[in-house]
């Protein structure tokens, strides 16, 4: 009596059916594995690019610090040349002459007789550090006015702009 409750279904796979199923499964798994690897690899490439940029930034920063050391050294030499009776103007003049000897340092004179020194430290990955120093107090002392990271060349977006709407006049 119980056997009557079962309905028999016959599925025939036929010749080569098993191989087709196996090939399908293998194909799916291959696609998944390739996809997961390509995602992981693109993540790794992104982190490597970030690392390159960060490493370049710190090298550029190091070069800027090196030039700062040169500037401070020249300021110290200018102060050493001063006599006790000399006025602050003499220090500023000496310092200007000394700093002119450093490659890439430009002098900006201010109204109150003191001056500013400006230089740039260039990196390899389109980034530079722009430094402005305030030379004040007629002694080897500087104040960092700006220490900015900027791009060396900005991309030109003007040619790619398409005017969608210019408005009514």
């Amino acid at each position, binding site marked *: 009596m119980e056997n009557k409750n079962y309905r028999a279904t016959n599925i025939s796979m036929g010749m080569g059916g098993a*191989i087709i*199923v196996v090939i399908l499964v293998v194909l799916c798994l291959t696609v998944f594995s390739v996809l*997961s*690897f390509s995602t992981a690899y693109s*993540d*790794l490439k992104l982190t490597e690019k970030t690392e390159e940029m960060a490493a370049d930034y710190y090298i550029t920063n190091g070069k800027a610090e090196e030039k700062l050391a040169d500037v401070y050294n020249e300021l110290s030499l200018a102060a050493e040349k001063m006599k006790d009776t000399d006025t602050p103007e003499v220090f500023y003049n000496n310092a200007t002459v000394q700093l002119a000897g450093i490659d890439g340092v430009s002098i900006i004179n201010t109204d109150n007789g003191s001056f500013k020194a400006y230089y740039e430290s260039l990196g390899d990955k389109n980034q530079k550090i722009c430094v402005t120093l305030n030379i004040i107090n007629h002694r080897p002392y500087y104040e960092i006015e700006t220490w900015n990271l900027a791009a060396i060349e900005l991309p030109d977006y003007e040619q790619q702009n398409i005017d969608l709407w210019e408005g009514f006049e």
Partner: protein
Amino acid sequence: MKNRISINSEVSLIEIIMSILIFAIAGAIMLNCFGAAKFTQMKANDKVEAGNKVQSIAEMIKSFNTSIEADEYLTENFKLLKTDGKEKIYVNYYDKCWNLCEKGNEENNEYFITVKTSDVFSGSGQLKEFVITSEKIEPYPFISKNKKNYSLYKIETKKFFSIAGR
């Protein structure tokens, strides 16, 4: 009422053997691919974490006004590994979750960060060079070919400490 599915099998033994063979060959290649994917992702994550740690140390060093402050920070937060003239090497070990490992707990060490400091010149101020490197002790399976320490992140920078300060 229950369904009984009976497969009327016409699969020959040679077909089963062929299927297993194909699956075994393809499986070996796929397993390699899945393994490479897993450890490549792990390496990418480690690089991000190492970058955060290394850059945090570099920014700390950059923020100090005097070289004494920088030396104090390194002595307090790192273990001094080697002193060679004007060169000092500090090291810190981390476990697999990038938590700092205590001394005497070396079996959990998975990564380490070294800070190499050296004096470039010291005249009217002090210019110091810092090389901060993060490495993994064991190489990654499937993707690392060399058996040595694997370098994750490296930055080099310099810092000038003037006598008068800034």
